[in-house]
């Protein structure tokens, strides 16, 4: 019997079990990473913006994406048009990936790839529960 192959097979089966478990947990906290990555997939650009601009956007009726509230501390995530983004003077671009810089942001403004429909992300209202940053 080839022990090395059996060990690799055992590890592969173990990973499959973990994946099955993660799938069952996808609607809970564990699934937030997929949901957050999914949002970033649609983002051509990611920009960190300040609390004042985040508050202004929210007060103006922009709904932060629900997935941002699932993170701790929460991140207010907005998809903006190019014009809206350019109107924000205090902004800093970060790579659209799960890097430390992006995860430490309090407010994120995303610019979608051309043709991407972003309304799907805000179909669930989340205005009241999102903590505002001072």
């Amino acid at each position, binding site marked *: *019997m*080839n022990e*090395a*192959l*059996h060990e*690799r*097979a055992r590890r*592969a*089966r173990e*990973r*499959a079990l*973990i*994946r*099955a478990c993660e*799938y069952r947990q*996808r609607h809970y906290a564990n699934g937030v990473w*997929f949901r957050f*990555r*999914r949002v*970033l*997939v*649609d983002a*051509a650009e990611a920009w960190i913006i300040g609390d004042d601009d985040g508050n202004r956007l929210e007060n103006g009726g922009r709904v932060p994406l629900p997935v941002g509230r699932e993170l701790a501390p929460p991140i207010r995530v907005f998809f903006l048009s190019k014009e809206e983004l350019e109107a924000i003077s205090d902004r800093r671009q970060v*790579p*659209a*990936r*799960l890097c430390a810089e992006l995860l430490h942001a309090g407010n994120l403004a995303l610019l979608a*790839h*051309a*043709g*991407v429909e972003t309304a799907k992300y805000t179909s669930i209202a989340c205005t009241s529960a999102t903590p505002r940053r001072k």
Partner: protein
Amino acid sequence: MIPRRLEAVRPVASTIHGGYTSSTEESLDFRTRLLRTLRAVEPVLGVQGVLIAGSEVPNLLQPDAESTLVVSQDVDIAVPVQRHAAVKARLTELRGLLRAEAEPSVWLPQSPDLIEVNFIGMDTGNERPGETYVLEDSELPLLVFAHLSLLRPGKALNVEGLEIPVPRPSGLLLEKLLTDRSAEKGDRDLLVALGVLLVSEPRDLEELETQYRGLSAELRYAVRSGLSMLSLLEPRVQMPDPTPHRALVAGLMARLERLEQDR
């Protein structure tokens, strides 16, 4: 399929980074080694159903098998479990490679102009569907990977007179997106998926949709999860850079999600 050259991230100067060879000369040399290795295992490649799998496929699918990506220094040969006996019978015809004592499914090069060969199993006949298991054999044991059953034979490539059986892009793309490996190895699998996506034609993606529909809900989710990770990967030396192709990945994700809504 129309072959396309894959642009790999260029290394800085002439350094070695993370085990990847780094200069263009070495990359071209890798192509020579890859093709020489495939010629050395040609008797096995002639067995019906045997396919080159894994990271070398995007290299081979480029024009004239240009092999601009240097993912790993080995080549995987997928053996249908139903053809195991036929492949075993031809092992004596291999030249320049020697079976590794500790791991008989691995054949080691006997000279630097060849690369390592790994024989892996695929169970397309669904004898043990969805399961990763070991096919025991004293001469050629095989680790049979569950998701290799997604591979379907494509049109064989003819490179310098050598017939190379490769899988259709759709199945290989799904198989790579379903990687359950983590960290560096998982990232490499996903970048191989990108390499396959970049040489895929519209009809390959239609075929991918058909195969995707046939997967379980769990695996469909895993495919989408893999795509999301691929979109956010950092560039790596000698691999295709995902950054300029993120819109393409987003488009494929949207297509797969539409299939979910149609269910």
